[in-house]
């Protein structure tokens, strides 16, 4: 059994090493993909949204509002612009995401007790920044209204500290743990790592058996007393080795360029990666055993890999997925992998906190491998 697995593994390694071009691709592609995906998603970091202020009122009250905006981290006031035209041009050119407009007569309306307005011009094509600027504006106005009320009460003899007790609205004091910068990148990077590992392993593995079928070598192989398990394990091992190399380079890229604290708990991280890679290889093998041709195998692999990324919570939180679709998410190893890796890299979780995900990943490996062996037939019925 072990000897035969060894013969298949030796043969596969010889074939892999002889195909230099594919080998380079296999080793370089994951680094490149992790880097590119990571860089592409880095812009999703939602802070310092470039904005301008158009203060048409130029009054003491409007100045209070204008300065209030610059105390928020979420927006970066680049300049005060003199005209609406200029604000619109900057927005159209994409140089800013928001223009905050305090219309003429703002102070007059406020003092007369009329309803005054604050206008926002937002770039709706960026659906991440628009609601954030809106939220900031609401908080600015809330605070401004409170301050005015307190001043009004003082004029009627209520001391500001007492007035504050009456008026001060509830402010939500949030302390964000585990990803203080609320950086999207830190959230999504484990998913990116998983996606890259999965893409490669599933594809590589999926074509191995159809390739032998197309070349006719499977026929010769099936005429020998090799068992299904021996063939499947023999094919799995060399690709597992390659994938572990990829794990190391990918983790290095994530640590070096994307501030993912890999050294937080490296052994646990490696265990998660190894189990995930095995589950992906097993998935690829399963695709391999049911595909008649390499073309078909690639087709099935693509149809597996793409939805997984969207549905596994790697890209956006699982809670964003509708209830009736969410059960599907639990079918993908990537979901457990990215959840556990996030726990380790963002929260410093230890084995006791992620053991369930580890166990589920291990379960996937066993089930998929067993399934792959069962769906592979040495003889045509």
């Amino acid at each position, binding site marked *: 059994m072990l*000897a*035969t697995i*060894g*013969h*298949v593994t*030796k*043969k596969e390694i*010889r*074939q892999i090493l*002889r*195909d230099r071009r594919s080998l380079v691709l296999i080793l370089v592609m994951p680094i490149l993909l992790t880097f590119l995906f990571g860089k592409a998603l880095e812009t999703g970091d939602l802070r310092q949204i470039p904005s301008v202020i158009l203060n048409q009122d130029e009054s003491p009250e409007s100045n209070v509002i204008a300065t209030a905006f610059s105390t928020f981290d979420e927006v970066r006031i680049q300049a005060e612009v003199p005209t609406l035209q200029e604000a619109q041009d900057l927005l159209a050119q994409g140089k800013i995401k928001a223009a905050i407009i305090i219309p003429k007569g703002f102070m007059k309306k406020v003092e007369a007790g009329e309803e005054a307005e604050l206008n926002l011009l937002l770039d709706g094509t960026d659906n991440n920044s628009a609601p954030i600027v809106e939220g900031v504006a609401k908080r600015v106005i809330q605070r401004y209204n409170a301050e005015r009320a307190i001043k009004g009460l003082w004029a009627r003899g209520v001391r500001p500290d007492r007035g504050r007790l009456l008026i001060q609205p509830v402010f939500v004091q949030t302390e964000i743990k585990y990803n203080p910068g609320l950086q999207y990148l830190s959230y999504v990077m484990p998913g990116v790592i998983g996606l890259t590992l999965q893409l490669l392993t599933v594809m590589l593995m999926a074509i191995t058996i159809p390739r032998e079928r197309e*070349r*006719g*070598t499977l*026929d*010769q*192989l*099936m*005429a*020998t*007393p*090799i*068992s299904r398990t021996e063939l499947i394990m023999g094919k799995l091992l060399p690709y597992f080795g390659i994938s572990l190399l990829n794990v190391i380079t990918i983790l290095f890229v994530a640590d070096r360029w994307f501030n993912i604290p890999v050294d937080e708990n490296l052994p646990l991280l490696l265990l998660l990666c190894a189990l995930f890679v095995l589950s992906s290889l097993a998935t690829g093998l399963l695709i391999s055993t049911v595909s008649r041709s390499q073309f078909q195998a690639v087709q099935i692999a693509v149809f597996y890999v793409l939805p997984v990324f969207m549905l596994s919570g790697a890209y956006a939180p699982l809670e964003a997925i509708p209830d009736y679709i969410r059960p599907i998410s639990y079918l993908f190893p990537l979901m457990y992998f990215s959840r556990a890796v996030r726990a380790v890299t963002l929260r410093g979780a230890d084995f006791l906190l992620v053991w369930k995900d580890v166990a589920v990943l291990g379960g996937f490996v066993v089930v998929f491998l067993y399934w792959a062996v069962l769906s592979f037939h*040495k*003889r*045509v*019925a």
Partner: protein
Amino acid sequence: MGYAIETRDLTRRFGEVIAVAGLNLSVQAGEIFGFLGPNGAGKTTTIRMLCGLLLPSGGTATVAGLDVSREAEAIKRCVGYMPQRFSLYGDLTVEENLDFFAGVYRLPRAERKRRVGETLQRVGLVERRKVLTDHLSGGLKQRLALGCALVHSPALLFLDEPTAGADPPSRQRIWDLLYEVAAEGKTILVTTHYVEEAERCQSIGFMHHGRLIGAGSPEQCRADLAEVILEVDAQPVMQAAAVARAQEGVTGVSIYGHTLRVFAKEATPLCDRLREELVAQGLGVKGLRTVAPTLEDVFMSLTRGIPGNNGEA
């Protein structure tokens, strides 16, 4: 000696198509058995069932006393198979291919080394053992494939057109090898399109439309032919063929260069009648005689006897 291969009503269907239809075949242990028949006759399907690659749809078959339906894996251990299509790893060297198959056939390390060395020697690829298989010529590839089927010293060898497309020296070389292997007491079942190769076998079987339509030694098959063959040298040959076809009792006419081969139930009245008719039509008759049938004649005659076909499958 007993039978190395025995089938009883062996049948294989692919959907609506019946590839092998109730085949009854017996192959003596230690003989070279030639399996003849046109493309699509069911030869490859039969071999694949006998090697344990394909499950029969009906009937039974035993190979080395083992049942193909129930003991396929045991059969694989004592059988060597060379498929019709080249099926070795092109990106491995000659030696690596042999070594891999020797390993997969579970030869222990020391024996594996020895067998790979011996096989390289036997198929004459010692100097090319480090060459990538893809870089070998067609004839050498066939020799290597034969080597891979032989490397574990199987008791039975199934060869599906081992010489297809090979030039005469390569074919000679492969046949020399087969005799060598047969001399060691191994049973060989070989399919071929070449009738002259069939003459080299100890027994032959003609397969057509999934059935065995004749079997025996080549001499026996020729002797058993129920027809006589007249060789007619008459010019112009096309007109002569038309005249021959029109005669009563003629079952078939084939043209070979300047001569005709006329198949008939009986020679005696026909010979004279045909000569008279040819002369009457103004054709010059240089020769007209009964000749001994070749295996090709036997095959043509046998296939013609089956209703609803014209020798094509």
